[in-house]
């Protein structure tokens, strides 16, 4: 069900967050995050470690439950059902159905080590969506071609370099044909010479019109690809705007200080 109207949310927002709060025990990590990501756009979130940017990303697909606030993906709640003006927690199976439409790429790839590259990619289309095997295989091979790894289809993840593993992880996420992909520091665990090949695949995705939320330290990538740059610090969005403008002329002194340090 879509709640765009009820909450006065622009239907063009793929992700819509207002006042999102999240605590781990007594530690409040998100202290009221406001953010909107338009359909077909790329948002890059930067910020010092511990600023809550990864936690926020994990809240979007309900890997973490939020404590307060409004968080909609394509006009709907991922982990809840609205009824009698209350949010009722959904059973795991229902959350999974909604999560299948939101891809995620992790810092440490998290490929399934006991499956080959091809098996990694077709696993979810086969068993979650119920695609016929031939169709799933064909789609997977096409995705592998897109990320330039057809030759590695029968390799196991441990036989691949970090950059290759991350490209397979992206293909695996794409296999579910998501309407949104979340990237959690996708190049932070890579050797410097392997960062480029992963960013290249991501650029290609962005050009294809995929909606992406990217937590990253790659300022260069953000400047080139992002439609919006978001700077988070201390659990809130400190500044957001056009990446070129923001990198050249940050308004907040905290943004300026951070950008000076990472460049």
């Amino acid at each position, binding site marked *: 069900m879509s709640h765009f109207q009820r909450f006065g949310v622009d239907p063009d927002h793929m992700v819509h967050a207002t006042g999102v709060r999240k605590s781990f025990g007594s530690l409040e990590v998100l202290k009221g995050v406001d953010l909107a990501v338009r359909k077909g756009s790329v948002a890059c979130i930067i910020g010092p470690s511990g600023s809550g940017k990864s936690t926020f990303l994990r809240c979007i*697909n309900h*890997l973490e439950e939020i404590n307060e606030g409004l968080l909609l993906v394509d006009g709907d709640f991922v982990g809840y059902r609205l009824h009698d003006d209350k949010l009722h927690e959904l059973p*795991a*199976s229902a959350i*999974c*159905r909604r*999560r*299948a*439409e*939101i*891809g*995620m790429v*992790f810092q*440490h790839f*998290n*490929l*399934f*080590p*006991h*499956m*080959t590259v091809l098996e990694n990619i077709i*696993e*979810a289309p086969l*068993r*979650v*969506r119920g695609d016929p095997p031939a169709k799933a295989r064909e789609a997977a091979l096409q995705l592998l071609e897109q990320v330039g790894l057809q030759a590695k289809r029968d*390799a*196991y*993840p*441990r*036989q691949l370099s970090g950059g290759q593993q991350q490209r397979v*992880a992206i293909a*695996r*996420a794409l296999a*579910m044909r998501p309407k949104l992909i979340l990237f959690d520091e996708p190049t932070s665990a890579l050797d410097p010479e392997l960062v480029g090949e992963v960013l290249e695949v991501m650029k290609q995705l962005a050009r294809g019109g995929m909606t992406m939320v990217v937590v990253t330290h790659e300022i260069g990538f953000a400047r080139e690809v992002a439609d919006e740059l978001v700077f988070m610090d201390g659990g809130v969005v400190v500044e957001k705007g056009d990446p070129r403008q923001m990198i050249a002329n940050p308004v907040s002194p905290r943004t300026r200080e951070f950008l000076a340090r990472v460049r």
Partner: protein
Amino acid sequence: MSSTDIHPAAIAPASSAYAPAIVPLRHPWRNAAVALVLLLLALLLYAVATNPEFQWPLVGHYLFNELILAGVGVTLLLTLLIMCLSCVGGTVVALMLVSRSRLLSVPARWFVWFFRGTPALVQLIFWYNLAVLFKHVGLYIPGLGTVFSVKTNDLITPFVAAVIALSLQESGYMAEIVRNGLKSVHRGQAEAALCLGMNPALLMRRIVLPQAMRVIIPPTGNETISLLKTTSLVSTIAVGDLLYSAQSIYARTFETIPLLLVVSIWYLAIVSLMSVGQRYLERHFSRDEAAR
């Protein structure tokens, strides 16, 4: 032969550095130890082969005796049945152990504490004597009365007592083994599966358990071998396993030693077969590690 026999240019061609030959270190003490072990082994074999009290011809005579073979069958059946039940039971208890609800994890911890903490033989005799505690086993529903009831002694035969007692004990051990296996799978694996839309059951079956199996199989193989031999305890409550069959023969004929040799040979043979099976299972669940 001395180094002067060789032309210097042959040893040290102009292009590479002079490389002296390598002489491996000698191990005189190791060689002496090997000799000693071989000597002791020869003496033992000689003693075993020439001592008529071992009665080797009788061992051959009883090895495929009908009663012995029936005993082997019962031992194998017990081991298989108990292991299957405790794999299921152990997995259930392990899932309870890792549950976020303390109402599940605390009873599971008590279960493991109790059934690992008491000797198998005590539990065996306890279940065998269940009739002392409960004369009848039945289902009583308030308002409906007794739905059915059987005499405990009819239900708990020695075989059933053995299966229940050893399964409960083994489940306690298996629970810890499975829990360890589950713990060994990185959390990111479950998260990646969830993000692909897998529900918890699918994620457990396709992603977590297959990876946990690598950690679960080696100790489970150990447990199976240990269980095979533990089942010999059932001879104390008159279940006709391998040991009990041998005992019933030598109680009549007093051919104690040859029959115990027969029993040992059978246990060793079964354990050897199991080890081969274990190796195949291990290889199956670590296919990716074999790939280079």
